[in-house]
């Protein structure tokens, strides 16, 4: 997939031609360098001669006589030299002055040499680059592309959101270009090779910047973007362009700075994208790192980092973005000192049941209450339905949301789950004991009422005297409806009524 404004895909022929042109530049540079070196040598020899000339008043020499003959002669006025200054200007100078002039000229020559050397080096590195490109394209068949979408979920340091690296500034920036090698008939990544080396360096800098950003995450992955086939795009992006293949897509979600970053790092000059195999883990996390083609999509879960959150009691909690948010919210909402930072304000046990609601099939299911059935009539609990012991295990696997405000599901909910369950289980065992206690106590009571729901096969049906503790299974709508229609009667009352009947 190419972003708009992509450079045309490079074919191997084009790359070859580019290599040729660069080679030409380098050879021309080398020739010029040689020429200037010769000039410098000549000047050196001239200086030598000028040095020795004034030693004698006159030198005996063989004077060239036309193109084919020499004639013996004398060189007189050895100190007087007429120097061509350039542009048809001459000056008569002494030998020493002439030497000075020659030195001055040599300076210019050396400057020219230096410039040429620089250019040559520049182009030599570019040639290397192009050659690598060629090699990559040739060897593309041996390389397998492993894709893993990297999802950075709230691996924070101290929970402070850094505004400096807000991804809002870079929406949907993809700065990968692909090199398409079309004669292979494969869908490779195209590379706009019109880029110069400066762009290459600029690209490197940008990548480094991005890596820093990755290391300073403060974003919550809300949705996970499945890694598409070609997440790479051309280098034609808003920012600097280089010749590296790096896909870096940043998506902003408007809700609460939830940003999911999908980072795929791909190598230079990736080959074709043949036969990509796609692996997904069971988790919803999709982490992807691009390498060459063909691609293997790999994803693995992210371990929630254990970060010490100072909750006032030096509790080490499993870090998760949810907790961070909850913690933040607590702080913002003038949170009191709590045992667990992510919990909202809980002052009574009833609050607990208000807060810890399970979500089964999209509905809120309150947990088993330890409160007596009678008191529950006036309780704040959302529902008096409770699950049996057997459902504990079911609940464990259910996604829970901590905060009642947000119905956000985190992939790190496991961390939350564990935390919750530690809490919940404090209560649940109590419920269990209560329930079992009641079961034992009323094991022989007569069924007074119709089972609340014929769909709920469970021992609790044998104890209709506890109408306030009906079974809760997946078909809960019915049960709920039936529960609500049923009046809540305490077991004592029910027993009394039974006796009266």
């Amino acid at each position, binding site marked *: 997939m190419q972003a708009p404004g992509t450079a045309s895909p490079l074919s191997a022929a084009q790359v070859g031609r580019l290599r040729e042109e660069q080679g030409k530049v380098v050879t021309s540079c080398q020739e010029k360098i040689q020429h200037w070196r010769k000039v410098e040598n000549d000047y050196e020899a001239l200086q030598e001669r000028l040095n020795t000339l004034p030693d004698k008043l006159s030198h005996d020499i063989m004077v060239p006589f036309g193109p084919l003959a020499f004639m013996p002669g004398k060189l007189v006025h050895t100190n007087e030299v007429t120097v061509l200054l350039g*542009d048809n*200007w*001459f*000056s*008569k*100078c002494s030998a020493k*002055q002439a030497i000075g*002039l020659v030195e*001055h000229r040599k300076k210019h020559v050396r400057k020219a040499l230096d410039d040429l050397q620089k250019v040559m080096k520049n182009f030599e590195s570019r040639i290397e680059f192009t050659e690598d490109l060629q090699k990559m394209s040739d060897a593309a068949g041996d390389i397998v592309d492993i894709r893993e979408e990297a999802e950075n979920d709230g691996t924070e340091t101290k929970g402070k959101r850094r505004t400096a690296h807000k991804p809002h500034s870079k929406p949907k920036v993809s700065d990968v270009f692909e090199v398409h090698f079309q004669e292979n008939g494969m869908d490779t990544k195209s590379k706009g090779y019109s880029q110069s080396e400066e762009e290459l360096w600029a690209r490197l800098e940008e990548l480094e910047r991005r890596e820093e950003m990755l290391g300073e995450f403060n974003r919550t992955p809300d949705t996970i973007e499945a890694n598409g086939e070609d997440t790479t795009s051309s280098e034609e992006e808003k920012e600097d362009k280089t010749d590296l293949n790096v896909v870096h897509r940043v998506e902003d979600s408007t809700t609460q700075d939830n940003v999911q970053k999908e980072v795929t790092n791909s190598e230079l000059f990736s080959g074709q994208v043949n036969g990509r195999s796609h692996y997904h883990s069971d988790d919803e996390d999709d982490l992807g790192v691009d390498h060459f083609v063909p691609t293997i999509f790999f994803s693995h879960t992210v371990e929630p980092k254990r970060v010490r959150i100072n909750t006032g009691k030096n509790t080490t909690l499993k870090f998760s973005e949810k907790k961070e948010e909850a913690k933040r919210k607590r702080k913002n909402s003038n949170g009191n000192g709590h045992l667990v930072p992510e919990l909202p304000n809980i002052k009574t046990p009833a609050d607990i049941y208000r807060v810890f609601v399970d979500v089964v099939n999209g509905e809120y299911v309150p947990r088993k209450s330890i409160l007596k059935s009678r008191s529950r009539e006036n309780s704040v609990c959302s529902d008096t339905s409770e699950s049996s012991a057997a459902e504990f295990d079911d609940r464990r696997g259910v996604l829970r949301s901590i905060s009642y405000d947000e119905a956000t599901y985190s992939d790190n909910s496991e961390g939350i789950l564990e935390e919750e369950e530690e809490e919940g289980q404090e209560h649940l065992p109590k419920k269990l004991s209560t329930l079992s206690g009641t079961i034992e106590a009323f094991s022989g009571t007569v069924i007074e009422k119709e089972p609340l729901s014929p769909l709920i096969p469970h021992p609790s049906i044998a104890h209709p005297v506890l109408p306030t503790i009906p079974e809760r299974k997946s078909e809960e709508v019915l049960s709920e409806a039936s529960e609500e229609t049923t009046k809540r009667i305490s077991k004592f009352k029910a027993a009394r009524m039974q006796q009266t009947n």
Partner: protein
Amino acid sequence: MRCVTGCDVINTVWADRTGPHRTLMADLIQKKLQGELEKYQQLQKDLSKSMAARQKLEAQLTENNIVKEELGLLDVTNTIYKLIGPVLVKQDMDEAKATVSKRLDYIAGEIKRYELQMQESEKKAEQQREVLARLQQEYQRAQGKGAAKA
């Protein structure tokens, strides 16, 4: 799709687009295209000429700079000559320096002039390119339609 109004030929040419009418259209466009192309090539030549002249001037500029520097290295005792044809004409040091400076300024001015010229040529060439592109599109369309019809 014949022109129902049965009016002049041009309408039928546009509406009918079959056989000889199509090639007529295409030919027209082609001729226009060629004309524009030639204009463009001329502009390119002008541009390259300006470029060459400018490069020559640049070389002269550097040379005169060197002369100026070297004149600075010399003192009054040295006699300076200027080569005019086959004759070396004696010059005054100050005069020589002034002459060289003036020549430098002149060269700089010339370079600027050529720069402007080049920019204008570039702009014109750009416009010409657009015209060419448009014409090419029309040509292809005309051809395409003709092919579709045929």
